[in-house]
């Protein structure tokens, strides 16, 4: 009698990053699709090692009848894959660093370009140096900006002429994002069809309108990285998956994917619309390029060592992005660098309150303790109001977003509880009077006595136990000048909150977070916040800092 054939339905989700490759296996367990194995390793180790790691995990867990067949099953399984592309290089020439230059640079970096040359006519260089530098630039495209609309700035035309003199024929597209009146003049400086004229991101001294330029640069970047690849580019697929989740859940979701080299920020609305931005140097490796980063990280970490030691860690993150922090100090420096990079992504705010913040990328999603992931998201994003926090621990969102349009939503819904690891809910206010109560929170759970009211003084951080799977109602009273970012309409706010690996986080530290000037005081406060978030949520005790 022949043995019945045993079948296993599974798929392999693979996210090949610039430094780390993540793979997850989803399979049918008891009639439900579950994430049954997950492995992360340096991309350079290769696909064979990644598969071997998955086989090792599955071998001890699969049905006994499948033992010995796991490797073949994985080989036959459907592969759902996304990958990170190397961003193309851009040179920016603008009239002023503070106005046209900064607007152009922000738009370019938000669109995902790697800005390798940033020159402004007020940077103190002489003409010869400027031309020599631009002539030596190896870039895929040029961006020129300057002059207000309604004026014919000769300096703006000079910026364009500099590029015309330095760029070789056929040396990539040119984007003119300066004075609208000068557009025809700039077009004439280059061979036909090279210049694209885009709306001025600084039409006058008071207005900043980077949207059209950013959108144009996003489209240009897509052309550069080959259209056929786009459906598998992690920068696109992450947004598609977050968008699908927003539609399914009816939540306004903010997703941040902090990679080794670049970072992606996605804001998805319940109606399915998605706005995403990529920062080419927004990943951990880019921290070292931020002016004064070592001093800032040392100051914000408190326990990462002095500025010199932190500077070495930041350089290591750039030079060897696939290595792991083995000491507490190096981990602290790495996670603080993540907070700094996230904060840079959100220097213009979060476009209103959101219902859920999702963190992705190895540093966020694979933080040793959930409280560390929560702290990076809280400190980096500063989501005002009542916000759920979660991490994409299985690194499944990117690959799922690479599915065909009609399957993305299905893939997101199939994974259910395995899709994200909830950290809990954060209630974050800003403002408040120093030393006084900023908010008063009472927690109500069915069948449990009410907790509180808990009084949160300005500058305090506190965690209330609320395990994963539990929901509760909170009553929040904002006092003094404390707000959730918008004008207060009612003295009391009622909201539903859900639990997670950390719990319910009450955060009255303000936005931006204020820190004591004295070093000892600052370190003490930072350590207290760290400890409040990292203590075991299951202990049941309230944690104050």
């Amino acid at each position: 009698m022949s043995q019945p054939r045993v079948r296993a339905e599974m798929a392999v989700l693979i996210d090949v990053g610039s430094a780390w490759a993540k793979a997850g296996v989803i399979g049918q367990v008891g009639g439900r699709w579950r994430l049954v194995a997950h492995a992360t390793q340096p991309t350079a180790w290769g696909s064979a090692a990644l598969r071997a790691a998955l086989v090792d995990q599955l071998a001890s867990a699969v049905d006994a009848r499948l033992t010995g067949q796991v490797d073949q099953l994985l080989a036959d399984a459907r592969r759902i894959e996304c990958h990170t592309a190397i961003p193309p290089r851009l040179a920016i020439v603008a009239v002023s660093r503070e106005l046209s230059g900064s607007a152009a640079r922000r738009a370019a970096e938000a669109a995902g370009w790697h800005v390798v040359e940033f020159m402004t006519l007020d940077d103190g260089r002489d003409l010869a140096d400027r031309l020599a530098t631009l002539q030596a630039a190896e870039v895929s495209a040029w961006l020129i900006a300057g002059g207000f609309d309604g004026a014919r700035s000769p300096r703006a035309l000079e910026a364009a002429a500099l590029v015309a003199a330095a760029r070789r024929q056929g040396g990539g597209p040119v984007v003119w994002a300066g004075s609208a009146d000068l557009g025809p003049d700039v077009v004439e400086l280059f061979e036909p069809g090279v210049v694209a004229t885009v709306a001025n991101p600084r039409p006058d001294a008071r207005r900043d309108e980077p949207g059209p330029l950013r959108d144009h640069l996003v489209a240009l970047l897509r052309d550069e990285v080959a259209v056929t690849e786009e459906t598998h580019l992690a920068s696109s697929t992450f947004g598609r998956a977050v968008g699908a989740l927003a539609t399914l859940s009816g939540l306004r979701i903010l997703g941040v994917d902090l990679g080794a080299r670049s970072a992606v920020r996605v804001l998805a609305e319940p109606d399915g619309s998605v706005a995403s931005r990529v920062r080419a140097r927004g990943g951990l490796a880019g921290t070292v390029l931020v002016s004064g980063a070592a001093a800032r990280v040392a100051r914000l970490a408190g326990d990462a060592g002095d500025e010199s030691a932190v500077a070495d860690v930041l350089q290591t993150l750039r030079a060897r992005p696939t290595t792991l922090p083995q000491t507490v100090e190096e981990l602290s420096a790495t996670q603080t660098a993540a907070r700094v990079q996230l904060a840079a992504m959100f220097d213009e705010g979060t476009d209103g309150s959101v219902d859920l913040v999702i963190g992705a990328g190895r540093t966020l999603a694979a933080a040793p303790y959930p409280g560390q992931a929560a702290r990076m998201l809280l400190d980096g994003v500063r989501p005002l109001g009542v916000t759920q926090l979660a991490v994409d621990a299985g690194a499944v969102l990117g690959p799922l977003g690479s599915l065909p349009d009609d399957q993305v939503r299905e893939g997101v819904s199939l994974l259910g509880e395995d899709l994200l690891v909830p950290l809990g809910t954060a209630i974050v206010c800003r403002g408040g009077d120093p030393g006084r109560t900023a908010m008063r929170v009472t927690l109500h759970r069915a069948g449990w006595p009410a907790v509180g009211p808990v009084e949160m003084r300005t500058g305090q951080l506190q965690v209330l136990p609320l395990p994963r799977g539990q929901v509760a109602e909170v009553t929040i009273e904002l006092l003094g000048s404390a707000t959730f970012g918008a004008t207060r309409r009612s003295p009391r706010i009622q909201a539903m909150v859900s639990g997670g690996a950390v719990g319910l986080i009450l955060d009255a530290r303000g936005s931006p977070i204020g820190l004591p000037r004295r070093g000892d005081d600052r370190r003490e406060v930072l350590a207290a916040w760290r400890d409040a978030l990292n203590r075991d949520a299951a202990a049941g005790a309230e944690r104050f800092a």
Partner: protein
Amino acid sequence: MSVVHRIPLPVGATPMVEVGHVVEPSEVLATRRTPRGGQAIAVAAPLRRSAVDAAACLTVRPGTFLDAGATLADNGRGRVVRVPESCILLGYDRDDGSALIAPLSGSQPVVGHVRGEVVAMEPDAIEVRVSGALVGGVGGTGNAVHGELRVAVHDPAAELRASAIDVGATGRILVGGSRASAETLTRARAMGVAGIVLGGVLDKELRDFEATQVRRRELGVVRGDFAVILLEGYGKVGFDPGLFAWFQRHDGRLASLFGADARLYVYDAEPAPARRMLARSGERVIAHRRPHAGLAGELIRVLDRPHAFGSGVVGRAAVVRFDDGRTAIVPLANLEATEAFPVG
């Protein structure tokens, strides 16, 4: 062994070599005329036109290269404005009727700093096949330089001291050890050292050194080129002993160092000890990141299960017996397998 090195050509450069030429590090591969400071030329007045109307008389557009005596503007009635010397037209001022030009300097050499055979000529680059070994680094600073290698420390973990740099180091590329202070780098540059190869350096000291050099260059005090390359990491990080032994064997060989690109070519050299990620049991390894940065040893075994390190990070791990006698569990991702190389 050979590698192809690409030398970018600036816009307007004129190549001086052809495919098949054998070139030396000091050889001029191309010439270029760099623009000098801006200069205004009256256009409207000689043409007897208003400043606004004269704009229509320009015969070339900004960004154009012009030879000496070339026509810049023509009113169509016999009045012509010519440029006095070779230049680039940068713009026209409609307020005062003058054109801004950037006169071009005399011919300046483009030096490749590598020895080898020209294998390709492209509009924007020359490719040279270099016979020798390429050693890549994790960081560096400075221009392209070349010179003889000279090992300046006795131990791969030793620090390169300022006192070790004497007149005998002038024009050479020194192979230091685990660190060099900003003071040492400054002295090396002052003594005419071409470049320094290090296992590691404190990022802060490297930045301090760069900052002083930028300031001195602005003051016109610093001349000549100087480069630094880091092979292992940032901080006090020793060399892999095998790689150090390889440098010792090639002491006196000609080398080219590209600091900013973190590349070092050593001519007529056997391949440098190879590195590979995902080390296996029994292999020689070098560790990166604290607390074992720069330490070499033998990988005893890879742990079957993921390991939680002191930081709390969980990952694949290996037991390593370091050459200093210590044994430690290290993240596998922090190890590179190194090719064994006879030491001494």
